[in-house]
């Protein structure tokens, strides 16, 4: 079931020749890629190209028709639903529409995982406050999701996903439909998570500027904010790009490679 060292090096997520179709429609067609531990991979592609599906497959929420998926050295595709719950505790996901539990307060939403693990009340409260402070929303503790704006919901969803310090984070369009200021706040959170906690992440986004911001900025702990990497700095952002087209991997590389690509499809995509 588990393969301790897949391909020798430490990988957070590995897709091996994964295919999936819904009815007659092919979503993924023999997709393979690897996400190294501590790195962030930005998934790009037009709507319906299977980006969200990749995240759901990673969590085992969906099953592929063929191919194998490894997450944290465990083969998700060979595990039963009941076995997956343990593994999912080590992964955090931020859904596109936040998917907060609307009958629970912000506090209970963020505390959900800890309550399930039977952590003491005092400890839960302390960690919920800490997580909400991370996303700068500690004042919303007693509010309900319906009372929050779209951007606040996303930030609560991020707090809920990261409260147990998961080893892998999956972000599904965390900045979609938000104003530039809120988007930047969220991207800053993602950069902070990457650079401070070294969490591996898959990021689905339509906003290219966010993806490039992630690749060109680092989190400065002293200033407690995201800062652009100065020119000439030898610094690895650990952020790479994966472009999907017709269910296949069309391009994979870092920010420089995608920006300088001569491929017409990539150029069109970047200038859209």
């Amino acid at each position, binding site marked *: 079931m588990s393969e301790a060292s897949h391909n020798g090096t430490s990988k957070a997520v590995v897709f091996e020749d994964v295919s999936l179709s819904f009815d007659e429609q092919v979503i993924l067609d023999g997709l393979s890629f690897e996400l190294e531990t501590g790195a962030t991979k930005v998934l790009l592609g037009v709507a319906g190209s299977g980006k969200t599906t990749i995240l759901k497959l990673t*969590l085992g929420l969906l099953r592929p028709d063929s191919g194998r998926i490894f997450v944290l050295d465990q083969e998700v595709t060979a595990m039963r639903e009941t076995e997956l719950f343990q593994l*999912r505790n080590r992964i955090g996901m931020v859904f596109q529409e936040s998917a907060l539990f609307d009958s629970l307060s912000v506090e209970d939403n963020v505390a959900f995982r800890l309550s*399930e693990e039977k952590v003491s009340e005092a400890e839960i409260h302390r960690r919920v406050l800490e997580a909400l402070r991370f996303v700068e929303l500690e004042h919303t503790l007693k509010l309900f999701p319906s009372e929050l704006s779209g951007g606040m919901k996303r930030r609560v969803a991020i707090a809920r996903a990261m409260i147990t310090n998961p080893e892998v984070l999956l972000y599904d369009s965390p900045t979609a439909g938000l104003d530039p200021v809120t988007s930047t706040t969220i991207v800053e959170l993602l950069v902070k998570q990457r650079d401070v906690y070294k969490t591996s992440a898959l990021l689905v986004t339509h906003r290219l500027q966010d993806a490039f911001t992630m690749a060109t900025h680092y989190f400065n702990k002293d200033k407690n904010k995201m800062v652009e990497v100065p020119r000439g700095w030898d610094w690895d952002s650990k952020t790479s790009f994966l472009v999907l087209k017709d269910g296949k991997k069309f391009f994979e590389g870092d920010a420089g490679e995608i920006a300088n690509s001569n491929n017409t499809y990539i150029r069109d995509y970047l200038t859209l």
Partner: protein
Amino acid sequence: MAFSLTEYAKGNVLAVQEYSILSWRALANLFSQPRYLGDILQQMDVIGVGSLPIVVLTGFFTGAVLALQSANSLARFGALSFTGQLVSMSMVRELGPVLTSLMVAGRNASGMASELGSMQVTEQIDAMRALGTDPSRKLVTPRLTATMFMLFFLTILSDLVGLAGGSVIALLLLRLDLNQYWTSAWQTLRYSDIFMGLLKPVLFGYIIATVGCFYGMSAKGGTQGVGRATTQAVVAASVLILAVDLFVTRLLMVVLGPL
């Protein structure tokens, strides 16, 4: 046409399979950790206490109209004094469990389908799975336990209130002796009647909760899908209750022996 018929049949077989898995797992969850006692108690309050008014009202009026109708027939044979017996037998063996279950199905199977359906279409069920919690344990099993447990007691209450409704008619309209009514109602009941009358709500509770949760969990297509799931849950639960009632009644008659 042949293609769509095959697809239709496949879809139905798949639905039955999914329903069977969901209802089996909901029951099997009871025998292993984690159990959600808080959620069970909360559902007991929603399903049991929340259904009290409609169950009491339904029971009362059913018992009353039963007394009125049976008295009309019994009077033709000069057997008006058997009214208590007839109301008691009908309420305890049949109408108490069935009508209570139908009312609870209308109220709670729809509630479960719409609540879980809304959670399904807004990805909250997926979010729960993503957070490492089994929705079948957290959402379905508490509803199943609470419905089976509370329907049992709601039925007892409904039987009693039905008899009381019959007694009001017996006293006020039929001018019967109350003592005679209650004595004959009580004495005619055997253990087999009580057994049948109290086994049914447990089975019907299982149907209501599993059908309600199944339609909720399999809701698709936004708010319209939630509406459809809600309607289907009530219809399917009601029809299943009446169908199962027939078979269970016949089975118990064979097992427990004739009257």
